[in-house]
């Protein structure tokens, strides 16, 4: 069983490394993620963010602008995730009420 696990892991790593050979060069400013325009002429999101973040939201830190404004809904989801975690810990682990006392 363990050897099968190791083989699967090695196979997975090898396949992933093979797939990564086809990825664009790291640091290449003309890689698809850095482009101004995609092959089908839709605007490239990243360069739009870099160009317009300060103009749109009067804020220098682009990451903050994307986090809270352009993709603010993701961040709302992220807050929801952590609230879920808090609620689940509360639900699973909080102390049972001792008889008569209210400080649960």
């Amino acid at each position, binding site marked *: 069983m363990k050897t099968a696990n190791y083989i699967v892991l090695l196979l997975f790593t090898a396949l992933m490394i093979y797939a990564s050979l086809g990825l*664009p060069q790291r640091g290449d400013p003309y890689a698809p993620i*850095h482009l101004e325009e995609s092959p089908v002429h839709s605007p*490239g999101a990243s360069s739009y963010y870099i160009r317009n973040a300060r103009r749109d939201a009067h804020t220098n830190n682009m990451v903050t602008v994307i986090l809270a404004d*352009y993709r603010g809904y993701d961040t709302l989801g992220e807050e929801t*995730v952590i*609230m*879920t975690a808090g609620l*689940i810990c509360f639900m699973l682990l909080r102390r049972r009420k001792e008889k008569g006392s209210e400080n649960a």
Partner: protein
Amino acid sequence: MILSNSPALAPLSLLLAAILIPMVAFRRRWLAFPLALSAAAFATGISVVNLVRVLGEGTIHYHFGGWIPPIGIEYVLDPLSAFVTLVINTISLLVLVHARRSVDAELPDRAMPYYAVVMLMLTGFNGIVLTGDFFNLYVFLEISSLALYGMIAVGNKKSPVAAFRYLIMGTVGGSFYLLGVGFVYMTTGSLNMADVARIAPTLYHQPALVAALALMVTGLGIKMAIFPLHGWLPDAYTYAPSASSALIAPVGAKVGVYAIIRVVFYVFGVDFVRHSLPLTEILAWLGAIAIIYGSIMAIAQREMKRMLAYSSVAQIGYIGLGIGLANPYGIIGAVLHVMNHALMKACLFLVAGNYRLKLGHSTIPRLDHRVRKRMPWTTAAFTVGALSMVGVPPTVGFFSKWYLALGTIQNGRWLFLAALLISSLLNAIYFFRILEKVYMKPLEGETPADNDITRNEAPVSMLTPTLILGTALIVIGLLNAVIVTGIIRLIVPPGM
């Protein structure tokens, strides 16, 4: 205002309820349930409005923050997503009505956080179905997964172990999906699904894009419990409290199915999938194996919830087979089965919950004909559900199998047709085993006890949803043709 924002309102109202419950109901416990119920009812109403709007106006896009798609996040309301949200919200509403009594019985002091977590799970499901953005899908997938772990873990002694195993599997699945998103983003430069759908055809046969597809489908497959990745499902459904398993089983796996249909057919497209990777072929085979395997395992079980869990594995196999056929009938069958299976499973799990509340167990060998006298209505609903699972004509179960069978015939895959037929037979075996126990008197002994049996039916709040679902199995079965021509025909993806 409500109309112009309607695509986003269903998940947002559920989220608002989830936020308000811990604040409002922290001291006043009784407020938790009404809040949750009203949010679910509102979400159902909004889904109806959305479906009507989509059928009238065509696809609707909703841009969060007013940013157009590749810049911001969008919600896409097309016939498929409107239909699936309606199914999810309606069934959850019914199950939620039913859940109140069993939550009171099983988790008396945790009702407040429990309802909040239920609301969060539904938020996650709605978000997954509606979103048009890869990363947003990941975020909502994680919301719903975390909520599911919590809902499973509050059950009996063994449930935390089941939840932990699910958590490890689910994290691997979610991370695989995220890795796939990374590959997609790095090769196409976009996170928007519609945008990627337009860019992907220019990048055929790139190993990175093929890897992205494979990783995404594997990750979602773990969440949806496709056959070799189903390991977490039976324990999780069995050890969860009745309310949780009734809420999770009908809709939980369907969301994964939806995401796979969305990614495979709408983003990458049929041509890409057929030519780059034998993905549909693999899905179809796995589906066929899952159908047989799940049915056989279900026969071997003694506990009703565990039997239903294994039958879920089989039913997900039907949907996987429908996706894998990759022809219009297959897709119609798969989407129809998403709804039909949700109805059937909800009905059967509610019945199991009723038995648990009134008999104190739901073990199959301990059921006998007295159950029918004590709980006639519940048993009637169970009978309809069982007949529907077997696929007896006027019920919903027949129609989805009919379309799947048409799909196999269209592709000329007789082996898959055989799998469908054999599985109907196996379904019949494990359901008639229970029906026989419930309807036939044992041959010897126990006759004097018959007179002592008093009616002891489940309370109204539990019986009503059960009966509504039982009736719906027949009514919607009769209306299936209308649903298929009116809604599901619009869903068949382009290029098929």
